[in-house]
């Protein structure tokens, strides 16, 4: 596969390490609340595991060490978009 890195252009997927769903960005922040146990459980373990466009995290280990959010179809492997994970994280309201 070829991942079109937003900064570095097309790179062979062999340069990357795959983690999993981009939902892992959405780490709950409510560690002190009653719902924390359930929310963290859902966050870490439960997956939509979609047959279709999947947003997923790839890490450019043999490259610039950036984490990317790749939107890729799990039926065809077609890649629809590649974004820097930190941009996605910020866009989702995460900061410090």
């Amino acid at each position, binding site marked *: 596969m070829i991942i079109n890195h937003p900064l570095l252009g097309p790179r062979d997927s062999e340069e990357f390490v795959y983690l999993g769903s981009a939902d892992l960005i959405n780490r709950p922040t409510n560690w002190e609340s009653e719902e924390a146990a359930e929310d963290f459980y859902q966050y870490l373990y439960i*997956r939509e595991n979609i047959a279709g466009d999947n947003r997923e995290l790839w890490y450019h280990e043999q490259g610039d060490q950036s984490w990317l959010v790749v939107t890729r179809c*799990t039926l065809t492997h077609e890649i629809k978009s590649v974004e820097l994970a930190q941009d996605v994280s910020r866009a989702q309201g995460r900061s410090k």
Partner: protein
Amino acid sequence: MSKTKYSALKVLKEALTGHKGWEPAWRDAEPKADGYDVIIVGGGGHGLATAYYLAENHGITNVAVLEKGWIGGGNVGRNTTIIRSNYLLPGNEPFYEMSMQLWENLEQDLNYNAMVSQRGIMNLIHSDAQHDAFMRRGNAMLFADAGCEYLNKKEVKERYPFLDMDNARFPIQGALAQPRGGTVRHDAVAWGYARAASDLGVDIIQNCEVTGFNIENGKCLGVQTTKGDIKAGRVGVCVAGSSSRVMAKAGINLPIESHVLQAFVTEGLKPVLDNVITFGAGHFYCSQSDKGGLVFGGDIDAYNTYAQRGNLPIVEDVCSGGMAIMPMVGRVRLLRMWGGIMDMSMDGSPFIDKTDIQELFFNGGWCYGGFKATPASGYCYAHLLATDEPHEVATAYRLDRFRRGEMIDEKGVGAQPNLH
């Protein structure tokens, strides 16, 4: 039932009379109008085994197995055929050992030769740390009566002089073997269970895709299929590889990701390798089929996919593993490669459990280890479906174990499915 018994004598008789007497191995059924006591969704090895044990062990014969395509077309028809019970953790080892015992009697139970071949499986050891870890595993196996044998370097070399012992990146120190491990002719497992289940009255319905579940007030009443709605007292889903997609139709998300595991077979060769060799350090395992092809595999492709095909990096990685350990295979040609979709669970262990929806049950999450589990999976799933209680060797395979913090993580890599 009127089924002819398979035997050498019968083969002889048919050969002399033009093979006219062979009947279909299983009845090709259509759905019954008034439904079934139990519907098994998925005509793979586990589904067919479940149906067989429901009928055989529990006398529940008003059972249908619904298969989207042709039976045995999933991972039971596409794997590296290895059976073993060399597990580490108490949640797993008794289950896989029971599976091994069922394999040992399978042919007589089913009257079908699935070529269960206990040729032995050998895990190579390359470092002191691995040695200690394998001692722990070996003792876990012996505690469970699964049998095991430690081979030192000299013994490994004597048995397998072609292994690269010394000039290797990972020199071999020894091996932990399970003599009772081996291989089974994978397709025959599906056919054998189908034939035996059909014989006991189970309806096997091919080309019947489940498109939805009829759920009312939190209770499952049956399934919607491409052959119409079918009522059921109880529905057991058993579609590893497609678990998330099917269970999503019941509104359930699972602790599972789908990944592709590639497997490989070479052109046929005269006998080279008489057991199964596992080269963990190099991500490679291999056996030789009765037809002569080397059958081997390695790691899964790391990304989520439903595409049933892999990519080159893993192909090259696996073949490198082969060359590293058996440098004489350089001129052996890889003939076929294929990819099967694995239900990779969050701790590498499976599920056999009820769901939050009444009368809807789930069996899946087998990772790349489902084949060897086939008999025990069917046995225990049938037990749960028939009695409402988990079988004693499958009590750990609960869906809520992550909520409770009771992971069964053999590899210790945590909630990242592609590492299991």
